[in-house]
């Protein structure tokens, strides 16, 4: 009996009651609510996926390209003195930071271990691999890096210079494209999100027209009528964002191995396990943004509709 007398004692309680009422309204129409939430969640999913993947890739690529490396393979006749001399000369340059010497013997052992042909390679009488210098450049500009590579190649002690930044540039371009595309899709998704919640709110108002008229008749101000509708928009935004985050996690789990395989194909020195997730802050921001937008969309729609209704 007492449960039927639910009149709040203060404004905060009133807001809690309105929020509860909005939630109960959603639960009272489970199929329609689920359909609306799925529509909004899938609308949000595509831009989130594109942004998460492109952001993670860009971050990783930025870290990697911040220390571009060149590999200089020395001539076949190289020896320790030659390696020392050329390294010393190179270190005098301002555009070179660190040089790691990879003697041919070490390179042979590493190759044998990595390739699994250690038995077969052990039978070779000569080591066909050259001595190599792994040079960390202080230069980030791809054009200047290419020019450095050419200058190094002109050294008589150096046979071949390999600069592995081209694919990074291409991948960076691709991720930038992905990010821009994600932002555009995101903008379209926001409009869609807004329209779905605004339309849903409009339908709720239309279904409650009689109730709203009675409330106005007995003196309910617009704010009293609007509050549950605003909370309904907020809940739609919040729940849809939660669903989108769950869907995004599920999709990332599926996609992550494919992306990491793709990276392995390109370069072994790059981190091949990239963490693709929105992060706690990103997830919280998304929940806040989605809830706020839901609140705003419901507010705009409800205000227009409620204003039109007169007892």
């Amino acid at each position: 009996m007492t449960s039927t007398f639910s009149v709040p004692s203060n404004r905060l309680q009133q807001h809690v009651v309105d929020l509860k009422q909005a939630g109960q309204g959603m639960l009272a129409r489970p199929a329609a609510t689920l359909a609306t939430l799925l529509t909004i969640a899938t609308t949000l999913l595509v831009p989130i996926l594109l942004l998460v993947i492109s952001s993670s890739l860009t971050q990783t690529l930025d870290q990697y390209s911040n220390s571009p490396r060149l590999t200089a393979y020395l001539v076949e006749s190289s020896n320790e003195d030659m390696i020392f001399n050329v390294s010393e000369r190179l270190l005098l340059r301002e555009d070179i930071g660190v040089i790691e010497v990879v003697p041919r013997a070490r390179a042979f052992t590493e190759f044998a271990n990595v390739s699994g042909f250690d038995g077969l390679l052990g039978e070779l009488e000569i080591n066909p691999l050259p001595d190599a210098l792994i040079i960390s450049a202080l230069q980030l500009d791809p054009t200047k890096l290419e020019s450095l590579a050419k200058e190094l190649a002109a050294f008589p002690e150096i046979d071949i210079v390999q600069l592995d930044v081209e694919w990074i540039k291409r991948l960076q371009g691709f991720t930038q494209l992905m990010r821009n595309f994600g932002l555009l899709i995101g903008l379209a998704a926001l409009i869609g999100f807004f329209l779905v919640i605004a339309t849903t709110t409009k339908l709720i108002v239309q279904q409650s027209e009689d109730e709203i008229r009675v409330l106005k008749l007995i003196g309910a101000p617009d704010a009293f009528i609007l509050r549950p509708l605003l909370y309904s928009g907020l809940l739609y935004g919040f729940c849809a964002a939660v669903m989108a985050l769950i869907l995004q996690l599920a999709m990332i789990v599926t996609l992550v191995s494919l992306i990491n395989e793709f990276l392995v194909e390109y370069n072994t020195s790059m981190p091949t396990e990239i963490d693709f997730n929105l992060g706690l802050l990103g997830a919280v921001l998304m929940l806040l943004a989605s809830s706020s937008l839901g609140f705003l969309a419901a507010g705009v729609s409800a205000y227009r509709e409620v204003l039109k209704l007169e007892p």
Partner: protein
Amino acid sequence: MIKFERVFKRYPGGFEALSDVSFNVEKGELAFITGHSGAGKSTLLKLILALESASSGNISVADLSLKNISRRQIPKLRQRIGTVFQDHQLLARRTVADNVALPLKISNFPKFEADRRVRAALDKVGLLSKASYFPPMLSSGEQQRVGIARAVVNRPSIILADEPTGNLDPALSAEIMQVFQQFQKVGVALLIASHDISLVNAMGCRTLVLEDGRLLP
């Protein structure tokens, strides 16, 4: 509490629902308004509730002039008036208690006080045992009593009632009128529109008779 001064109400097309209507209902007064169907009773009640505006003349309700009433002031005005509607105007998806509690909820009453008032109002109309029912589960007479409980629960300074005893038997009608008289005694102004001449005569109160939109002398 209710003051009409030379009020006219004309609808588009030229139909004049009220013509030169002037009257007062003072604090603590119970007045009836009678007249045949279409005489202008409902229009008069609508003007008091600011559901419509007068074409000319002045109306003041609870010291508030309705001539230039703003949209924001209208809810405040209606909160000061307890209204019993002929067609009940109850929310079908809310319980009887919740329907009665609505004016208190709108006025942001403390829960304890609101609970007490809802019980008291339902007790007065004999429906406390049906507090958890939904309006469609009640008879028309019971729904009318819920409407009356809702109208009085906020202890308004003015009560308007449009045929409040239309669906009630004579015994219950008399009880409801006693409830109204109790409010009259504590200073509430009541204006009751009714066809029930025997009830009006039995109450011995001032009666305003409307005929074709004019108030008979």
